[in-house]
């Protein structure tokens, strides 16, 4: 256990460092008071306005921000896991964005075109999203395993293909909802309430089943990866494909499975967005959560638990980030913090060495030669 915590230390310090750097950036462009206030607002937006609630405020000032943070976190958990699972199999999935797009579309189509009982409709829509995402990812896997096409290039291409085909053709063409009169609507037809992810805290908060579902999926991925024979084989295939092959592990199959799972996870993220908050495939799919997944996965050490914690943190940060605008602080700070945190994770050797040198005064242990 101690070992595992030690592995998390660089990530935690990196995030803290990023927070400090951004605080300084705000303080420099504005002043220290604004910077501190901005962080306070971010906190309020992320985990609720507790002081105001304790002052006798409405419960909404807590559950609404929590709901927003949870929705964002659910998306980040799923895309982060998507990237992490692929990493574990030795594949770099830059394509989570595209997989999320097709997943979201599938959920929107099943949610709107099919009518069924709620007990059936929602699972069907989720399943459709997972399958669509998985199939999309499997294209890249197939190209990699049988044609030797590097997955970085194929997933980048598949992202573009998904976005252009869906946003510029399907959504504005065949799947355009029927509109009486000349009203402008964006996106596909609205899904039936039977396919909604149920709200958990009533109408005031957008907290929905997507969040516990994402947590459950994370637990599933963790169990699969760490506890099962399949997961073991997948990790072996990712870390040492040749050795895994020699050990009788069907490496290609495991890699394809992992990529399929990665796609399914990203597809589910799309479904959570569509079935949880948007209720249709919007004209343009939300923020680039698929790309955020890369950062989340890397900061979280590509480990399901780390990814979940990282996603929770950044989900809250980004939900709260909007409130910074109330102080006139720029809207891109949460992203900046995320980027800097990743940069510091990448550079952890540098500052770990600095720390170590300060602790053990004379001889620094393993500073590589220049």
């Amino acid at each position: 256990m101690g070992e595992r915590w030690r592995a998390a230390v660089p990530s935690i310090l990196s995030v803290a460092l990023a927070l400090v750097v951004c605080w300084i950036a705000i303080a420099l462009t504005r002043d220290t008071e604004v910077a501190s206030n901005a962080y306070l607002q971010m906190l309020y937006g992320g985990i609720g306005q507790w002081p105001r609630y304790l002052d006798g405020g409405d419960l909404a000032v807590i559950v609404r921000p929590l709901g927003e943070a949870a929705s964002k976190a659910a998306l980040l958990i799923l895309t982060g896991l998507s990237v992490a699972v692929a990493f574990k199999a030795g594949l770099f999935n830059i394509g989570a964005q595209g997989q999320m797009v097709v997943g979201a579309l599938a959920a929107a189509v099943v949610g709107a075109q099919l009518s069924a009982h709620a007990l059936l409709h929602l699972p069907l829509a989720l399943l459709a999203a997972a399958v669509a995402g998985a199939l999309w990812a499997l294209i890249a896997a197939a190209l990699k395993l049988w044609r030797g096409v590097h997955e970085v290039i194929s997933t980048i291409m598949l992202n573009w293909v998904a976005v252009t085909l869906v946003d510029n053709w399907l959504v504005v063409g065949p799947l355009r909802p029927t509109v009486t009169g000349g009203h402008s609507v964006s996106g596909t037809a609205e899904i039936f309430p039977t396919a909604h992810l149920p709200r958990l805290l009533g109408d005031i908060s957008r907290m929905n089943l997507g969040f516990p579902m994402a947590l459950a999926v994370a637990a599933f991925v963790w169990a699969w990866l760490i506890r099962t024979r399949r997961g073991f084989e997948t990790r072996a295939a990712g870390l040492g494909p040749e050795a895994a092959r020699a050990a009788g592990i069907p490496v290609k199959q495991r890699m394809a499975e992992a990529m399929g799972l990665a796609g399914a996870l990203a597809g589910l993220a799309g479904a959570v967005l569509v079935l949880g908050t948007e209720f249709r495939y919007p004209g343009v799919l939300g923020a680039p959560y698929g790309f955020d997944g890369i950062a989340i996965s890397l900061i979280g050490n590509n480990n399901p638990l780390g990814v979940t914690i990282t996603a929770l943190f950044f989900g809250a940060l980004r939900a709260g980030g909007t409130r910074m605008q109330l102080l006139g602080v720029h809207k891109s700070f949460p992203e900046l913090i995320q980027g800097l945190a990743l940069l510091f994770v990448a550079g952890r050797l540098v500052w770990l060495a600095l720390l170590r040198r300060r602790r053990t005064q004379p001889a620094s242990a393993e500073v590589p030669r220049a």
Partner: protein
Amino acid sequence: MSLEIRAGELLALVGENGAGKSSLMNVLYGLYHPDEGDILLDGQPVRFKSPRDAIARGIGMVHQHFMLVPTLTVAENVVLGREPTRWGRLDLERACAEVTATCQRFGFQLDPRARVDTLTVGSQQKVEIVKALHRGAKVLILDEPTAVLTPQEAEDLFRVARGLKEQGHTVVFISHKLREVLSVAERIAVMRRGALVAEVKAAETHVAELANLMVGESRPGQGTVEPYQPPTGEVLLEALALKALGEDGRAVLDGVTLTVHAGEIVGIAGVDGNGQRELAEVITGLRPLAEGQGTLLNRPLSALSPDEARRRGVSHVPEDRLRRAVVKDMSVEENMALGRQGHPPFARGPWLDFAGRRERTQKLLGAYDVRPPDPLLPVQALSGGNQQKVVVARELDSQPKLLVVVQPTRGLDISAVAQVHARLREERARGVGVLLISLDLEEVLTMSDRVYVLFEGKVTGTFTRPEFDEREIGRRMTCAEPAHG
């Protein structure tokens, strides 16, 4: 530690694995930097910041692992770093001419335009030497140059070394083969644990003494020669005219026929790159069979997968340890489970069995004296020898019927080698068939009951123990006239 190297001598450096021979030479060559101490050249203290300085002072080194860029040509490899140019442009013509000239001066035959990865190991070795000489090296350091050469090629190399010495060069060479050390070197320096423990004149010592100096104690008894009994066990592997293709589509195995019985060790002798690796791959299901047939443990050899081979009872200690035998970022216990991760005690149904795995790992680590015996350590944190012990432990622990071992003692020190050899003999006694593939002819000859010699993918000779003749086998290993040089 101090070592004196005299001008114009042939000095040999011996010592156990990890004694620090390569490290010392790398310091001399400016690749590593000494924490303390000085290097004196012609009595002057010098400081080599990088190999560039060492090269400028006339020191050349041929590394234990080849330092050639495989995608470049011989000439490009040789001139790299001191390229002849014409108007800023790389002058390949001149480079080739220069390299040809150097080759002629020292009596090598190399095609300067050939890509290095198309050359045989022996030729690559020569490219390395030419590289050093081309830079005007007066002192030539050869780190285990004969490890991958046939006796003939090694003999060739020593002729070159003596020739260089005649021309006034100094040659330092490192080797584990004490007999060749004695026959070539004039002076021998022995290292142990990073220190120089003895310097002796070749003429005044013998193998046993050197071995004692190296290990610091009497050498574990060299397996006494056992009497030969023709194999009687059931036939485990019967291969008929096997043919397999390499990555480039050429036949790397060309009509190989062999049998392995239960309870015998069958050795495969051959120079690196003559199909030994591919033979092991075919038998373990890693490489598809192009033609030919055979039976492996009573079922056909064709369409074999690694998984299927394991299920039939084949264990495999591959040659390329870090690539094929272990997943270096995984822990020791995870590596212990590799290949049998689905069976007790490593798994229970679809779930991994952590307790069972830990218990078995700890037992094996103890039995094989792996140091440190920590099942949670990533395998890459173990020394090479200990990694090899992990692999051998795993493969023998899975109760194989047929054991395919390739270079099982590469990188092991004397006592570890003896241990592995003993284990292999134990397996034989248990009735396991062992196919031993090694580049070390001495190892093949001491261990095997029968030997097949492979050359260019063909079997060019079979010998039973009473017929072993090192020179004849060596000749078969290079069947046609010596290829180069």
